[in-house]
């Protein structure tokens, strides 16, 4: 009897890239839910716009590159890029901001470098950085978290939608009345004005241990991140090294002068710290690939994040820190090849 042949191994685990990405998307849901609780339905609209733009850009790029549309459109990677970018944008930002940022991320940061698996930079962070550099005013216009002391006005879903689509608030509202800086931004400005940490912290936008609202978003992200660790989608090296180095930097400076520098707990629960540690820096494509390499890569992100937040020109530094360390990945990979079985030294 004759048989067809195939190369060993003849069994493979039912793992797929799509399953991998689907789990990452599910793990983002707690963060998104808490975000909506504190900042209103803006995120949902931004996410929908981002996903639509990402899939359209992906489809266009795949068509141009003559790649199988269905196989790549359903892999979930474009959706993750879209969601991460949407989470970084102010909930009321105009539609063209999120659409152009996502399109830039997918078309230039991802496909111009060769598409899935080939991008040197984290696409979502490229999109965010481009927007931040080009439209700083729009990106720093945040809402205050929706808590009793801070609630000035509340936009309904429809009002939010029309604001995003038209770029104008409904008649009864004024931008300066409803916006507020983010806690990281406020801290920067206040410290720069000569306030002490304690004075700055008196503002109601600061919560129990981090920024009001932001501390809970970061905790929700931590839960999603722990789920990713438990499901072995990500490894511990990147989140531990990034948060660890952030804590070390913040602790040193805080010990040096608690009046002038925020403490470690504030840093890990503010801004995009948790999102960066569990969802952004862990993007395997643009991260270092060996265990030791990942420790070095993520420690670098932590140090750079702290540096940019404390002494740099932008309130949060995660995006630039990730992009800077992305550049260093080939070098890190080259010098962190693990020792091979039976060899005395590393190659």
């Amino acid at each position, binding site marked *: 009897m004759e048989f067809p042949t195939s190369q060993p191994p003849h069994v493979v685990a039912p793992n797929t890239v799509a399953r991998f990405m689907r789990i990452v998307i599910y793990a983002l849901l707690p963060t998104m839910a808490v975000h909506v609780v504190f900042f209103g339905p803006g995120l949902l609209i931004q996410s929908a716009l981002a996903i639509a733009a990402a899939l359209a850009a992906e489809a266009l790029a795949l068509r141009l590159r003559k790649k199988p549309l269905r196989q790549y459109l359903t892999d979930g990677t474009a959706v993750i890029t879209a969601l991460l970018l949407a989470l970084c944008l102010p909930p009321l930002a105009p539609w063209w901001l999120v659409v152009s940022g996502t399109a830039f991320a997918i078309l230039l940061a991802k496909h111009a470098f060769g598409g899935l698996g080939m991008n040197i930079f984290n696409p979502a962070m490229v999109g965010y950085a481009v927007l931040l550099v080009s439209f700083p005013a729009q990106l720093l216009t945040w809402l205050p978290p929706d808590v009793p002391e801070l609630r000035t006005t509340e936009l309904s879903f429809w009002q939010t939608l029309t604001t995003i689509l038209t770029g104008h608030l409904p008649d009864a509202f004024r931008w300066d009345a409803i916006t507020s800086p983010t806690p990281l931004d406020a801290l920067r400005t206040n410290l720069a004005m000569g306030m002490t940490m304690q004075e700055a912290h008196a503002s109601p936008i600061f919560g129990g241990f981090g920024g009001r609202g932001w501390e809970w978003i970061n905790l929700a992200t931590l839960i999603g991140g722990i789920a990713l660790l438990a499901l072995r989608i990500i490894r511990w090296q990147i989140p531990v090294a990034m948060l660890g180095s952030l804590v070390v930097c913040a602790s040193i400076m805080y010990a040096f002068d608690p009046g002038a520098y925020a403490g470690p707990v504030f840093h890990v629960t503010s801004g995009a710290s948790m999102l960066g540690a569990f969802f952004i820096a862990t993007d395997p494509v643009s991260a270092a690939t060996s265990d030791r390499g990942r420790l070095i890569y993520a420690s670098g992100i932590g140090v750079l994040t702290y540096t940019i937040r404390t002494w740099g020109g932008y309130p949060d530094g995660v995006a630039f820190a990730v992009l800077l360390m992305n550049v260093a990945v080939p070098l890190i990979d080259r010098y962190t090849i693990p020792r091979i079985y*039976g060899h005395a030294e590393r190659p």
Partner: protein
Amino acid sequence: MLQGNSARGGLRLEAHKERSTREPIAQASAPALAVLPLDQHAGHPAMPIVAIGDRVAIGQAIARPTGDVSAWLHAPVSGEVVGIEPRPSVTRDCMPAPSIVIASDARETRHPPERTIQDFLAVDPLELREWIGRGGIVGLGGAAFPISAKLATGAQAAELALLINGAECEPYISCDEMLMRERADDVLHGARILMHALQAREGIIALEDDAPLAAESLRAALAKIEDDRIRIQIVPTIYPSGGERQLIASVFGREVPFAGLPPDIGILCHNVSTAAAVARWVRDGEPVVSRVVTITGDGVERARNLEARLGTPVAQLIAECAGYTPRVERLLMGGTMMGMPLSTDEVAVVKGTNCIVAASAMDLQPRQPEMPCIRCGNCSEVCPAYLLPQQLHLNARAMDLAGLERYGLMDCIECGCCDYVCPSQIPLVARFREAKPRLAEHLRARDDARDSRLRYESRAARLQRLEAEQRARLEEKRRQARRKES
């Protein structure tokens, strides 16, 4: 000395051994026509010492080794040599290999044993090693490496530990487990013969924790012989813990150096079936003319282990297991992780045939469409050689030979763990197997170039030295002449 953090990497796989271990090992009937490829061991093929028309008996030598790494071949049936010709062979991907073909006369005449050794301790170790080499014994775990060559390297080492490998890590294969269960005495006797032949100080029989009946049987046999130099060690069932280098790491916590052999660190490893074959040959004078073969998979009706003569067609073994089921899709020699695909069942059992899997769709998990590598690192986490398959893949795609060398392509043991866990469904092992010959060629060429350069440099240095010496002599002569003149 390299200290491994015992064995790292590997996979916990479903064993699929229950079906084939329900029945005891059965004797398969002798083939009417035995086909015996001359290259059924690693190294140089054997050279026939019979001619067409010769009558042979079971156990009679029919081909002799050529060179240091080669093995004897013995007739598995009695009858007449009807051909010395190319026949499709599992040793060549079902393409023809030079073979001896014997038509059985069904009389089962046995060649009288030339020598049987009961008191092996009275035999000089060197003589015993040479005698073991005559039995046509090769590594029966599947690699078919001639035992004579292995014993020669092992004998060089002082303070040797003999490791008997019963860790049958590959899914579906159960011939070693059944052999340990039913013939533990042979395994231990063979181990003791090998220990004497090698003057080994200890013997360790290692097997996986999912074969408790085999362990029990070995313990009972060990209790009978009361040899306190031998111990039984249970290792966790993690594929590929039965790989020689992986087993050594997990048993001894040490690594075999790259480009070295286990005796370099004082260890020699033999499969349990090989040890049993040594016992049969030395004690009973019976060379390797048969072996236990697992016939299993959802594509065969009655999965079990058969003691099959060498040269038996796979089709006959399947028939003795009540034939194929309608679900059969593929035929594999070996297990599902490293098994070689067979394009036909009209090929014969050789010394290295440990298992035939008649696989249905239930046994196989076909790949999804391939996606690009996302560098997730699942592969490097399971690699038992501690490689970075994701980086090897990148370098193999670009055929960057320097990169492939740096990332240790030649250290890949092709176990398939990386393939198994890859979410992008990339056929990594196939890619690495493609790239290996290219890299090997490159390394050879580079070594050759280095050797020629060294030769040239030493020649230039020699010529320079000679010239200098000549000049010095000339100078000396002139000086003497001048002195005479003055």
